[in-house]
């Protein structure tokens, strides 16, 4: 006689756990208790069911025949005949079938067009950012910046004024160490302060890690390394293009401003990026 004891224990434990779960819930809930009690409550039933199956239910082995080949050629032939019934009428007027095809095809094509409503046209959106000549540089709180606001080896994320939510305009501002030769074309840097697009040219993650000792920007997503002293040229990892450098200067009030937008599209590549 196989014992029912373990099954009884499992089911009683389950019921008690369910009860406890209700109490826990009524008293405000607690995630660990909820999960553990639910596990006991469900697990008890699980164990009980399997034990019942193993001990008290018929387990054969039972045998059933199967068709090695599921298909039935004769039935298929009869089905084909049924399907082809009175198809001669249609076949004699072949152009009807063709016209139906044209109508369906045209409708299908028209039906695809709502897809166009899903988004805006890319156009030249990817080619520009809100930066432009004279646009002031601000912090995330829209506060303008002076040169004195960034110390040697300082690293800041900056935006164009009034565009602090513009994801494509995110820019890193770095003051190089004394003695570093500022990279980029003449006029791009100002007094050892340089600015580069923060959007990784590989897959678009913000390049938020700056290593001041080696003047390298490091992207955490796929480990691209950009050498700031070589104008953010990628020196390791899968990135193939440098981070575009934002040419900056100081306006007459002493605030940092951009001289122009980035010289090339920021961020990851797309098929017509070079045009």
């Amino acid at each position, binding site marked *: 006689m196989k014992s029912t004891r373990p099954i009884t224990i499992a089911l009683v434990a389950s019921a008690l756990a369910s009860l406890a779960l209700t109490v826990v819930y009524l008293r*405000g*809930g607690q*995630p660990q208790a909820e*999960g*553990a009690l*639910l*596990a*006991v409550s*469900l*697990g008890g*039933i*699980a*164990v*009980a*069911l*399997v034990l*019942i*199956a193993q001990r008290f*239910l*018929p387990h*054969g*082995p*039972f*045998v*059933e*025949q*199967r068709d*090695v080949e599921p298909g039935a050629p004769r039935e298929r032939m009869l089905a084909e005949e049924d399907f082809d019934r009175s198809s001669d009428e249609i076949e004699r007027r072949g152009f009807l079938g063709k016209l139906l095809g044209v109508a369906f095809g045209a409708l299908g094509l028209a039906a695809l067009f709502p*897809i166009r409503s*899903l*988004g*805006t046209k890319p156009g030249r*959106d*990817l080619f520009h950012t809100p930066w432009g000549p004279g646009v002031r540089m601000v912090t*995330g709180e829209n506060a303008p910046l002076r040169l004195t606001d960034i110390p040697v080896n300082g690293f800041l*994320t900056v935006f164009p004024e009034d565009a602090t939510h513009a994801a*494509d305009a*995110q820019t890193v501002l770095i003051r190089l160490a004394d003695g570093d030769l500022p990279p980029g074309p003449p006029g791009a840097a100002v007094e050892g302060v340089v600015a580069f697009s923060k959007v990784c040219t*590989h*897959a*678009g*993650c*913000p390049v*938020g890690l700056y290593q001041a000792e080696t003047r390298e920007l490091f992207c*955490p*997503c*796929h*480990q*691209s390394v950009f050498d700031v002293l070589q104008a953010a040229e990628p020196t*390791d*990892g*899968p*990135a*193939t293009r440098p981070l575009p450098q934002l040419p900056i200067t100081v306006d007459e009030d002493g605030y940092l401003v951009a001289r122009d937008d980035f010289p090339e599209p920021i961020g*990851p*590549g*797309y*098929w*017509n*990026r070079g045009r």
Partner: protein
Amino acid sequence: MIRKTVGWLDARIGGSAFTRHALNKVFPDHWSFMLGEVALYSFVVLLLTGIFLSLFFDPSVSETVYEGSYEPLQGAEVSDAYNSVLRLSFDVRAGLVMRQIHHWAAIVFVAALVVHMLRVFFTGAFRKPREINWIVGLTLLILAMFNGFTGYSLPDDLLSGTGLRIAYSIALSIPLIGTWLAFLLFGGEFPAEEIIPRLFITHVMIIPALIIGLLAVHLAIVWRQKHTDFPGPGRRESNVVGSKLWPTYAAKSAGLFFAVFAVLSALGGLIQINPVWLYGPFEPQQVTSPAQPDWWLGWVEGAMRLFPAWEIRALGFEIPNPFFPAVLLPGITFALLYAWPFLEQRFTKDLEYHHLLDRARDHPVRTALGVATTTFYLVMFLAASNDLLARWLGLEVGHVTLAYRIAVFVAPALAGYVSYRLMKALLLSGAETFREMPFAALRLKKRPTRV
């Protein structure tokens, strides 16, 4: 009482014959055949917990001020989506445990699907007449992976938002249509406002509907063709041996459902997953390190880290770098997977019906190719955590990446070769298990000593 109800139904719908047939249906009950059920029941748990979550989640990126009970974020401007997930996690009773069970269920769901697929592959269960189900099953896997991605991107937190940015860039990288595809999918330039609501409807309606539909087809085909089985005592191509659906198989299967739910509940309450309050809300200029997607996308992430800085540029046009590891590789992967039953048929010229399964050793070439391929994706998967490994072992992350770049070619070749030799040796030695196999068998030359 049950008898009366059944009688009432039968008088109106009929179907007693079908019921009899169903109750007596025989199912082989080898333990490895239950992997599909583990996946199925994980999906059921996903549906149950998902319904609860969907009653609270707010699929909107409109800004709101967080005023819930998580102190560090009180007063912060966050999106409605993020706010609703925080609310679920801290201020809705059972909210956090439901969220966590849901996410653990997704992890186990895809894991079970992959192991189930490997079982089907290595036992040759995809052979005629089951090619259709192989295709349906693969599609289910893709849908599951996709739904997992859309799901964990819903809370609009910093980690998943970074993943969305990468997804956007991958779409951009597709030649000719990339920019349009990204703009139409997301609704504009990144981060477009449309994406969270669209992910939501994809995640709770479109893909689950497809999954349920395909699941029904998958199970119906198994029902119709009857399950395969390993060769063994009393088993033939022309029969099925096992337990009857009612009561034994149903009881065991129901037990399995409760066990799946129990394990997922334990995980959901006891082990923290996706603590979005610690990750912070998504801001496009912020990022965290380490940054990885959920595990089933690890192979794509790893491929992106391993693939060198190559891209194709000509005449102002380009095919950017991410296209190769993140579009071309997965495309080829799934194309080959879909085609496999037909490719194997072509190579083996085997057009027979098969209802009895292979053991891995019965088909050493298939096994070796499967092991090699699995190793290939496994190495890429491991490469996705190259920065974590570098940190834990005190190595330079560049060196770890280089090691993986070598391993991704060497390891599969080695694993494939070793498994081929082992399978061949096992087969030709006639032993049942590895332990019984004479060591000399491993040094087999082309001509075996024993057929």
